């Protein structure tokens, strides 16, 4: 306990230096935590993907639509439980600013909440959504961000599908858990199709992709092969894959950015390791005579190592704890600021483990050289140092 007291008192010897080092480590751990959270948030869709959902899209590219007529054929395939579909609508809400962007998707109101059971909506609201052609439902987070209420009309200027569009909010869905995306707006695909018949005939009776719920996730590969084989000779060939693989495809488009962010997060840890190592080396060098005195009194090299490593670990772990404590509110603020970019922005348990682990590792590594040098220092050499 007295050694701990000595460590504590040594820390207070140069208060500003200790505080700056702790602050530096805290900032580094915060930056690491934030970057890791961005990386994990980026691929949240992959993690949140359901094993019993398949996505069938155009074999050439996601942007090409598939015929609506495929729906009844897909429903007839063995192993397929439910078939839903959707089309990316896009459009402009108010302006093209980032804060006014959110996913607007035309869906099948009869099946969407069946294939996505993680989205919770009241029966009344769902019934209205299914019955009212120009209705829409919005996620809870999106509703909070834009103050959408039931009965509000959301005006959208179409771009892919030109024209002025108005959607009446008839429901607000919430996620079953934190991984569910609450930033989307769903509206009735029939409404889109009806308007397309009048003004955008090229897009009539087309859907963006199909979402299929299968009876048995283990049979997903077989079902996928059956579907794609069915349309192998049709003008609109399909590519069917698990929802996870589908999401992974999106994430891989940003692979270089994510990899860069991951590298930067580790570089930050490396930099702070140098900073702490420098601090501990300076401190140990200043106290070399004191360590020699302690050894003269009968303290062993292990005691000296304990003092140096203890101080290094205390600084790194305290900095790590402060950084980790700051990571939560900062990530929450970041997530709140970019709700549609990062529908799920939460510090993952692995990020916490890595932050603590790196704090510990940095503390240990930073103390190795000064501890080794001080432990192996001859007492007579240490006593000759000018204190």
């Amino acid at each position, binding site marked *: 306990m*007295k*050694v701990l*007291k*000595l460590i504590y*008192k*040594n820390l*207070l*010897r140069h208060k500003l230096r200790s505080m700056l080092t702790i602050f530096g480590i805290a900032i580094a751990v915060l930056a690491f935590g934030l970057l890791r959270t961005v990386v994990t948030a980026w691929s949240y869709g992959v993690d949140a993907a359901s094993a019993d959902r398949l996505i069938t899209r155009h074999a050439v590219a996601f942007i090409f639509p598939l015929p609506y007529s495929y729906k009844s054929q897909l429903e007839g395939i063995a192993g397929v439980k439910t078939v839903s579909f959707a089309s990316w609508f896009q459009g402009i809400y108010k302006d093209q600013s980032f804060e006014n962007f959110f996913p607007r998707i035309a869906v099948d109101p009869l099946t969407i909440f069946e294939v996505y059971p993680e989205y919770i909506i009241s029966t009344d609201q769902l019934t209205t959504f299914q019955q009212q052609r120009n209705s829409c439902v919005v996620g809870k987070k999106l509703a909070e961000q834009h103050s959408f209420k039931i009965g509000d009309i959301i005006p959208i200027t179409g771009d892919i599908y030109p024209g002025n569009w108005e959607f009446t909010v008839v429901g607000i869905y919430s996620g079953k858990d934190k991984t569910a995306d609450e930033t989307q707006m769903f509206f009735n695909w029939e409404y889109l199709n009806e308007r397309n018949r009048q003004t955008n005939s090229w897009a009539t009776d087309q859907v963006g992709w199909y979402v299929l719920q299968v009876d048995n996730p283990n049979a997903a590969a077989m079902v996928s092969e059956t579907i794609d084989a069915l349309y192998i000779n049709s003008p609109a060939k399909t590519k069917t894959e698990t929802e996870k693989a589908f999401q992974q495809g999106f994430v891989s488009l940003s692979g270089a950015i994510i990899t860069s962010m991951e590298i930067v997060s580790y570089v930050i840890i490396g930099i702070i390791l140098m900073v702490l190592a420098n601090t501990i080396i300076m401190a140990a060098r200043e106290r070399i*005579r*004191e360590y020699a*005195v*302690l*050894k*003269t*009194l*009968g*303290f*062993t*090299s292990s005691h000296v190592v304990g003092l140096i490593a203890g101080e290094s670990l205390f600084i790194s772990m305290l900095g790590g704890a402060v950084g980790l404590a700051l990571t939560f509110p900062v990530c929450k603020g970041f997530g709140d600021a970019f709700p549609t970019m990062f529908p799920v922005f939460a510090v993952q348990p692995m990020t916490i483990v890595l932050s603590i682990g790196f704090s510990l590792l940095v503390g240990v590594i930073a103390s190795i050289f000064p501890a080794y040098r001080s432990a192996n220092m*001859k*007492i*007579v050499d240490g*006593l000759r140092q000018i*204190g």
Partner: protein
Amino acid sequence: MSTLVEIQNVTKVYRRDTLEIPVLQNISLNVPEGEFLALMGPSGSGKTTLLNLISGIDKPTSGSIIVAGTDIAKLSESALAKWRSHHIGFVFQFYNLMPVLTAYENVELPLLLTNLSKKEKKERVAMVLKVVGLEDRMDHYPKQLSGGQQQRVAIARAIVSDPTVIIGDEPTGDLDRKSAEEILILLSRLNSEFKKTIIMVTHDPHAAESAHKIQHLDKGELNAN
């Protein structure tokens, strides 16, 4: 009186790269228990080196050093550290107190290596601080004490674990005359009243007069007076 420190044919050679620097040459010396010995000699004569060898913080190149029946030249580093904590009380020229610890905490340091209870440690520290006349300054930090007071704290630290030998390396070398006199009186008291064996290196003939015996070292060789 029985012999407490027995030095036989000790030689110490320092090596700097390929250069060999002989510091002590074939030294033999016996120090009886209860002795107050002063080692004198010019700079570079090997006084401090001999003191370091006796206190087990350095090892001889050849020869044996037996202190209280133990040939310390044969002990391992860790055994030597333990041995020092039991047998040696070291008083340095520049006090070498821990600046972040109070006088009480500095004196308590050697006791952290013992199995004494908290109460026993407290009693011991209070007792030795009283012996050196600093019982009212126990909560003061070194920078709040004069040089003489710091050296008295260092002496308290040296005697708190009741060592076999007190080693003083120029203990008055950094003090004014009055403070130096107080330290010498204190060392004499420790020797006469508490029967402590003291080996002290000094440049100062006046300081050496406090000792029972003076040994002169010159160019690494011992000349008895």
